[in-house]
């Protein structure tokens, strides 16, 4: 429906006024839901994402149980009204893949062997989408896991990098995602520098790839600080309640 803007980047300035390696405004709030064991709400640019964690609880159906460790379930779900053209409810191939890679992005930091036969269930709802929903989801899920008190070695932070109008850019918006040349979501354990999610759609040169990866690292570091701060605020608030 919408037409492609003539230029996505103008003299190094992007459509929303950012430079190539700047991130959008991000607001993270931990512990926003009552029913869930842990939760997190993030507004990240035009994205509005809610994550909830239930567990560790008995895994069911029983044949899914692992006698040596907890299993993780991860469900990435877009609300029907989160995108311009209404999304039909229910999983599609894209959300199945995103759920899988997001689950694997969080697995490395979870002490799963503490909870045999259990399930740690992570639900991510995309209420409004503006590019980078899977990385926003992982970022929110990581905070929600901490909020639920699930034993973790570290937080996982995630952000998208990519390429538009020939330039490597950090934290794509919708237009850059739709009309740009490449999109590369990355999740990291910032403290150790380990990568837990890496995907790339589109086409880039080897050099651009390295540059993008470094942008992502820098971005994840910023995200990590906001995640930590949200947990501190939650803790302080719960103490003062």
């Amino acid at each position, binding site marked *: 429906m919408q037409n492609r803007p003539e230029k996505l980047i103008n003299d190094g300035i992007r459509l929303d006024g950012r430079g190539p390696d700047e991130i959008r405004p991000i607001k993270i709030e931990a512990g926003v839901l009552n*029913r*869930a064991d842990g939760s997190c709400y993030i507004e990240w640019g035009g994205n509005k994402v809610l994550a909830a964690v239930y567990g560790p609880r008995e895994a069911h159906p029983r044949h899914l149980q692992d006698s040596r460790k907890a299993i993780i379930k991860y469900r990435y779900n877009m609300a029907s*009204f989160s995108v311009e053209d209404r999304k039909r409810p229910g999983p599609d191939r894209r959300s199945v893949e995103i759920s899988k890679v997001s689950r694997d992005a969080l697995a490395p930091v979870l002490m799963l062997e503490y909870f045999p036969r259990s399930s740690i269930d992570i639900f991510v709802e995309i209420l409004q989408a503006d590019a980078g929903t899977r990385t926003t989801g992982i970022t929110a899920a990581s905070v929600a896991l901490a909020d639920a008190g699930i034993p973790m070695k570290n937080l996982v932070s995630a952000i998208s990098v990519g390429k538009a109008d020939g330039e490597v850019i950090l934290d794509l918006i919708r237009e850059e995602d739709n009309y740009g040349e490449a999109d590369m979501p990355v999740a990291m354990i910032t403290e150790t520098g380990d990568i837990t999610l890496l995907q790339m759609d589109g086409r880039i040169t080897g050099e651009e790839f390295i540059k993008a990866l470094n942008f992502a690292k820098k971005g994840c570091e910023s995200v990590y600080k906001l995640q930590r701060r949200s947990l501190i605020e939650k803790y302080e608030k719960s103490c003062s309640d």
Partner: protein
Amino acid sequence: MSEDILSEVRRDYIYRLIKNGDRIGGRKADEYRDVSVEKGIIVRAEGSARVKIGNTDVLAGIKAQIGEPFLDTPDKGVIITNAELVPLASPSFEAGPPDENGVELARVVDKGIRGSHAIELEKLCLDAGSKVWIIFIDIHILDHDGNLIDASALASMAALTNTTLPYIRYEVGEEDEALLIKDTPIATTCADIGGEIVFDPCLDEENASNIELTVTTNANGDISGIQKRGTGKIPFEDISQIVDSSRRLAGELRKKL
């Protein structure tokens, strides 16, 4: 097992409280929890509203599309109401297509709106027999602490009053137009707990009750929807008093729109 015992203990507690004329949170029998309505929070949607009733939290979004009318109503637009009881909102919700509770929730909200004629379907017709507006009301439950129907119905009406039809995007007009709303049906739900009727039951109260009655009333007091739920029975003579209370409480909720 321990969960069973816990829920029995909780049921007993609720039951005794109510028998003593008391309620969790000190509410009166016909008193709602705090109700907040926040409109227009999803810019990608044609209309949206988030409603909280106590800890219950519901988001409704409206999307509009151009499509074909039903064969038997060629000159009318279409409303489709759908509810997602996503597992984020409650440990008792499971992923997958709506179960009977999700279906019932969506249908009760849908029938309340439809029965009230809040939306003139004829006004949604662009070209009889071939081109009409299809209005999707999507209800997304975020946090479940009971009385989902009232919250969902209120969120849906609030979102509809906040809806602009995207004539420009669909190239069927030169200006976007606000959706015309002609009435404001409000659903109010009560539960019977040990013979006492309480409105706006929270989740623990719902679990202690085996009968709920939802009555949807309009601005002029007409009824545009009733639904009895649960495995219990209601004495014939209680009904009319419930309807009267429903009408009065709906008047209060209506102010929040």
